[in-house]
C-alpha cells in the first residue's frame, strides 16, 4: 500500500436505461451519493470533483451536482472526451490527488440521452442550399455523409471491423459471436439496460445497420450515471479496516489520443491509440494480459470488441477470431470480457461509461458482483475509446488479503 498509489474506495452506478422522470442531476446525484456512501464518507471529505458529460457539456453539471449534494468550495472540473468522458473525469481526480492538491476525489460520469436512437445513426436532415458554395476545411458544397462514404459511428466501426476482416480473415459470424456473448452475460446483470439472450442466428439475421453489424451488434443509447471515490495511498492508511479491505488499487492509468497515421486522416483509427494505452498500462502495472481476471472493454459495436482483443493483447496478433471461437472471453473462459453485458447490453450513456467500467471491475475485485461475480478475480482492466479520439486504459488490483 504505497503512499503514491491511488485507490478506489467507493463505486456506484445507477441502472442504465431510460428514465424520463429523472433529470441529469438526479442520475448524477444517485451515483455520487452511492459512491460516497460506499466509501463511508460525505461530500465534506471530498477535495476535488470531476464531472464528465457529453451532451450537456456546457451546463456546468459538476456545480449543478454540488448544489444538490454539497457545496464545499472545492475545485470542480467539467470534462468532455466523447465516449471516454467518464474515464477522463476519473483521470482528472487522480491527477489532483497525485499532484498532492487533494487526498480524496470524486469522479462522476453522467448522460441523459433518452430515446435518441442508435449512436450517430441518424443523419440530421439539412436544408438544401439554393446555390452551391464551397465551405469549411474541405471546401464542401453539400454534406458529404452518404456521398463520400460514411462518418457515422456505426459506419466507422463497421469499416474498422472489415479492415480487420480483410487482413485476418475473420467473418461476420466472428463479430456476431461477440454480441451473442455479451447479451448472454447481461442476463446476470441487474443494472443492464437490456437483459435478453440472442442466438447466433438471431443476431446474424437481425436488421442490418451497417455491415457487418446488425442491430443487436450495436449499443443502444440510454440514461445513466456512475461515480467513484478515489484516495491517495497516504489517506487510505488513515481510513477504517473495512474501507481498506475493500479498497481497489489503480495500478495503471493511461490516456492517449490518436498519433498521426495515414488512414486516421480519413477515418479515426481506433487501434493505434488503444495499443499505445494498453502497452503503457501493462508497463505501469508491471503485469501482462495473462494476469487479467476480468476485462471491461469498449464494445460500442461488436466489430470493435473483436479488434480490441487484439489491441489489448488478449489474443495473439491477428488471432481475435480464434479467440472468440475458443470461448476465451466468455465468463467461464480464460479472460472473461464484458461480463457486465458490455455496452451492447448494459448500455452506453456516453459520459457514464468510463466510470461504469471502473465500477464493474471494482465489484468483481471486491467479490461483490453478485450473480455475475468472476470468482477469485484479483486483477482487472478497463478500456474506453471515444472518437475523435481519446482512449483510457486502467488496470485495477484487489487489496492484498
Amino acid at each position: 500500500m504505497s503512499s503514491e498509489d491511488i485507490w478506489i474506495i467507493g463505486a456506484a452506478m445507477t441502472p442504465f436505461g431510460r428514465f424520463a422522470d429523472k433529470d441529469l442531476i438526479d442520475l448524477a446525484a444517485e451515483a455520487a451519493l452511492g459512491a460516497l456512501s460506499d466509501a463511508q464518507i460525505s461530500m465534506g471529505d471530498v477535495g476535488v470533483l470531476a464531472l464528465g458529460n457529453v451532451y450537456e457539456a456546457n451546463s456546468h453539471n459538476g456545480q449543478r451536482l454540488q448544489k444538490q449534494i454539497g457545496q464545499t468550495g472545492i475545485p470542480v472540473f467539467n470534462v468532455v472526451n466523447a465516449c471516454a468522458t467518464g474515464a477522463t473525469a476519473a483521470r482528472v481526480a487522480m491527477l489532483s490527488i497525485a499532484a498532492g492538491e487533494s487526498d480524496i476525489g470524486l469522479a462522476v460520469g453522467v448522460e441523459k440521452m433518452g430515446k435518441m436512437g442508435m449512436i450517430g445513426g441518424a443523419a440530421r436532415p439539412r436544408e438544401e442550399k439554393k446555390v452551391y458554395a464551397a465551405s469549411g476545411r474541405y471546401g464542401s458544397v453539400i454534406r458529404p455523409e452518404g456521398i463520400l462514404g460514411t462518418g457515422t459511428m456505426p459506419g466507422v466501426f463497421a469499416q474498422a471491423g472489415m479492415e480487420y476482416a480483410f487482413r485476418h480473415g475473420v467473418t461476420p459470424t466472428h463479430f456476431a459471436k461477440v454480441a451473442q456473448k455479451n447479451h448472454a452475460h447481461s442476463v446476470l446483470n441487474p443494472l443492464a439496460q437490456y437483459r435478453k439472450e440472442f442466438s447466433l442466428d438471431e443476431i446474424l439475421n437481425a436488421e442490418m445497420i451497417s455491415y457487418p453489424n446488425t442491430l443487436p451488434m450495436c449499443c443502444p443509447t440510454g440514461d445513466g450515471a456512475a461515480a467513484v471515490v478515489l484516495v491517495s495511498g497516504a489517506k487510505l492508511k488513515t481510513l477504517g479496516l473495512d474501507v481498506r479491505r475493500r479498497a481497489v488499487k489503480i495500478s495503471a492509468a493511461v490516456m492517449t489520443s490518436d498519433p498521426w497515421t495515414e488512414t486516421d486522416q480519413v477515418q479515426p483509427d481506433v487501434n493505434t491509440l488503444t495499443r499505445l494505452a494498453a502497452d503503457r498500462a501493462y508497463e505501469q502495472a508491471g503485469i501482462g494480459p495473462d494476469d487479467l481476471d476480468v476485462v471491461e472493454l469498449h464494445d460500442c459495436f461488436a466489430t470493435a470488441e473483436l479488434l480490441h482483443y487484439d489491441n489489448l493483447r488478449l489474443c495473439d496478433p491477428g488471432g481475435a477470431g480464434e479467440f472468440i471461437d475458443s470461448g476465451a472471453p466468455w465468463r467461464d473462459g480464460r479472460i472473461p470480457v464484458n461480463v457486465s453485458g458490455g455496452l451492447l447490453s448494459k448500455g452506453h450513456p456516453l459520459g457514464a461509461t468510463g466510470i461504469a467500467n471502473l465500477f464493474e471491475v471494482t465489484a468483481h475485485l471486491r467479490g461483490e458482483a453478485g450473480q455475475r461475480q468472476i470468482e477469485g478475480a484479483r486483477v482487472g482492466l478497463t478500456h474506453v475509446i471515444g472518437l475523435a479520439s481519446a482512449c483510457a486504459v486502467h488496470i485495477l488490483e484487489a487489496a492484498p488479503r
Partner: protein
Amino acid sequence: MAGPMEGLPVQHGGSTSTPRQIPVVDYLVLGDEPHLSARQCRSCGALYFDRRNACAKCFAAEFTSSRLANTGRVRAFTFVHRVKRPFVSAIVDLDGGGVVKANLLGFETPEDVAPHVRVALTTFVVGTDDDGTEAIAFGYKRLGKTA
C-alpha cells in the same frame, strides 16, 4: 454496372450545352481527367485533404499540392442501411500513396467486395442547385469496368 445509387456519369468537355459544374469537395479536381489533389507537407510528405494550419505528423507548416492516383485497393468497407438511400462506404488505399474515403459503386452485396479489391475513381452528378450548377462527387468502381 451503374445502379441507381451511383447517379449519372459526368459529361466533360467544352460543349456550350454542358451545365456549370462544381466539385463536392475542393480536393476533387474536375476537367478532362478528374482526379484527387492533396495538400502535401513539404517537410515529411504527409498527405491531407483539408485546409491546414500545420502538418499533424511533423508540425511543419508548408504545403504543396500533390496529384493522387485514380486507382487503388479497398482497405475497408461497409454497406450502410437504415438511411433513405443505402450506400456502400469504403476506405481506399491509393496506388502511390494516399488514403481516401468515398462510396463504392457497382458492388451489390458485401460478398461482392473481395478483400483489397482493385478500384478506380469515377465521378457523377450528385445534385443540381437553383442556378443549374451541378455538384460532382467521386466514388470508386471495380477497376476495368467502364462507368
